[in-house]
């Protein structure tokens, strides 16, 4: 059971420059109707994307969703079956990888094992019009940027995993590409290192101003790193937006379920008034209110979704419209918060996250095993999903 994502990601990802540029400039990278088929299998299906200069954009999805194939088409390792790719106004679709102003940080890092750290970083520069001393300066600058100046003469097998990751980053950035592609940049690192590296990546991005496209399967990583992200499934882009948009206003059951954890219920619309829909949810054992979405008609079948942290748990029946009774089946104490599993009279089990804002002892908590409790939520926190 993964811990539900908090809003920290959205808060950190306030990129002043990206946000400022976002509104004014035309898109820097344009993916137009790109489709990739391998035989009868469609890996990427008519994808359209617009990414602005200086953004960190994440492609988020499970394995086999097409995110890596899309990345490889941007790098030039795969030719799109249909569609075109533009970078900075130039059509890149037919250019081989070695002629694109795009560099990639590989998931395996793909460091050349027979070259030192320094030679790895310098490798791309030898195809550029530079003097030897300019080249040496750039390598030194890059190694300083990733704090590896002391390791320049080591071979890749003589440094740690985190250091290898930084060499790969320095090597990809050395040519000052217009676009940097990062394939699961943090996947091979352990949890502690991953968190530190996230911030380091953002820092480096801010310093260089390079546009980043990150492929990841880790939703927390995507939310922390990116200014905007796209959720992919089965070769299609399901939703594009900021972390907040995608988390708080998912447009489908799939996106809602992929980002963070959530409770789903089958429901029927009873009526809509003043942006608030009244919904029958037999599994909740109640009629509840939720923020309406456009195009609802009474009698319509719909999915009601509520995130665990949006639910409040109490011993007595709360005021307000959305009150549900249940019984504590299970609880898990995580320190900063607790997870409750509440069994409703209908037999459905519901997850609730409750922040432990007060310091209480073992026997003083809000609810204990087998206790009868009440749950409530704000109508604006309930999400209605059509599919």
């Amino acid at each position, binding site marked *: 059971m993964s811990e539900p994502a908090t809003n920290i990601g959205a808060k950190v990802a306030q990129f002043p420059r990206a946000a400022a540029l976002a509104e004014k400039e035309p898109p820097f990278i344009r993916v137009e109707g790109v489709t990739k088929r391998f035989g009868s299998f469609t890996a990427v299906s008519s994808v359209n994307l617009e990414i602005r200069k200086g953004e960190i954009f994440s492609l988020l999805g499970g394995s086999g969703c097409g995110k890596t194939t899309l990345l490889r088409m941007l790098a030039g390792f*795969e030719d799109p079956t249909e569609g075109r790719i533009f970078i900075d106004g130039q059509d890149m679709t037919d250019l081989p990888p070695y002629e694109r102003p795009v560099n990639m940080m590989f998931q395996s890092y793909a460091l050349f094992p027979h070259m030192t750290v320094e030679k790895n970083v310098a490798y791309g520069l030898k195809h550029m019009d530079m003097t030897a001393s300019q080249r040496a300066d750039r390598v030194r600058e890059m190694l300083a940027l990733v704090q590896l100046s002391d390791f320049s003469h080591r071979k890749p097998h003589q440094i740690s995993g985190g250091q290898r990751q930084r060499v790969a980053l320095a090597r990809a950035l050395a040519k000052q590409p217009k676009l940097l592609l990062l394939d699961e940049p943090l996947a091979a690192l352990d949890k502690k290192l991953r968190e530190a590296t996230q911030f380091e990546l953002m820092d480096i991005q801010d310093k260089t101003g390079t546009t980043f496209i990150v492929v990841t399967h880790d939703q927390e990583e995507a939310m922390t790193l990116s200014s905007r992200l796209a959720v992919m499934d089965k070769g299609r882009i399901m939703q594009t937006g900021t972390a907040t948009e995608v988390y708080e206003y998912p447009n489908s059951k799939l996106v809602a379920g992929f980002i963070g954890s959530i409770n789903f219920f089958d429901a029927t619309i009873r009526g809509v008034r003043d942006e608030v829909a009244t919904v029958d949810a037999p599994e909740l054992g109640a009629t509840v209110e939720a923020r309406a979405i456009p195009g609802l008609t009474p009698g319509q079948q719909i999915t009601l979704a509520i995130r665990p942290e949006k639910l409040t748990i109490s011993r007595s029946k709360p005021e307000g419209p959305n009150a549900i009774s249940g019984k504590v089946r299970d609880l898990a104490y995580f320190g900063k918060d607790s997870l409750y599993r509440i069994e409703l009279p209908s037999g459905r089990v519901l997850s609730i996250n409750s922040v432990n804002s007060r310091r209480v002892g073992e026997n003083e908590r809000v609810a204990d095993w087998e206790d009868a409790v009440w749950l409530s939520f704000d109508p604006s926190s309930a999400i209605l999903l059509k599919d």
Partner: protein
Amino acid sequence: MNRRPVFLITMLCFGFAFFYIPIISMMVYSFNGSRLATVWGGFSTKWYISLLSNRQVLKAVILSLEIAVLSATVATILGTMAGIAMARFKRFRGRTLFSGLVTAPLVMPEVITGIASLMLFILMAEYIGWPATRGFTTVTLAHITFSMVFVTTIVHSRLVQADEAIEEAAMDLGSRPWQVMKDITLPVISPAILSGWLLAFTISLDDVVITNFTTGPGTTTLPILIWSKVKLGVTPDINALATITVVIVGIGVFTAGWLLNRAEKRRELDIQLAYQANQ
């Protein structure tokens, strides 16, 4: 970026033409009616008939097979033991010499191994009296010695790849070292043992140089028979013999390859199904 590597494909075609044109030519000429081996004289199967009625050839085939089966079997047992010793027993007295002994025969020019073995056998006959004459026994001993190291190489590389933790798990579950060997290690390396046996068998069946040195009068294996004939030039019945060999080996190799391929595909399918069932 999926450009076809034209140069590499061309080289592959050229290489395979180089490999197979001589063999195919030889097979075609085995049906040559003419006695002159290189001049076409019409289609005929007479060389096959004369070959199959040649008692000398049949005797040589049987002798070669006997030696190959016997030497491959002993070589597999000894070679497997050596492979296990190299892969699993990290420290024992004389390990460096041992590792030299199991690799040296692989790179030793055959002529040297041949005369060295011959001198040994002559001196053994002189001073110990066994093996008294050179022939079946000495050839088999020599074949065992130089083919066992090939088995060792195969078994060793398989064992190095295998996860040692499964042996530790068996020991943890109460098996004694010998039982671990019997229940876990040997089954794990059984494909390697099988391919080792096949390799030893083929090497023995194919050997000319070492056999030539260690054999004695009356012990003529098939390669020695062919050797004595081809020294005199190209003859059509050797073409027929070669064709039969190539066809038998080809069928064997392709059947083995097909079976392996099928097993691999089935395993992949099983993994996929299991994965889907789990989702």
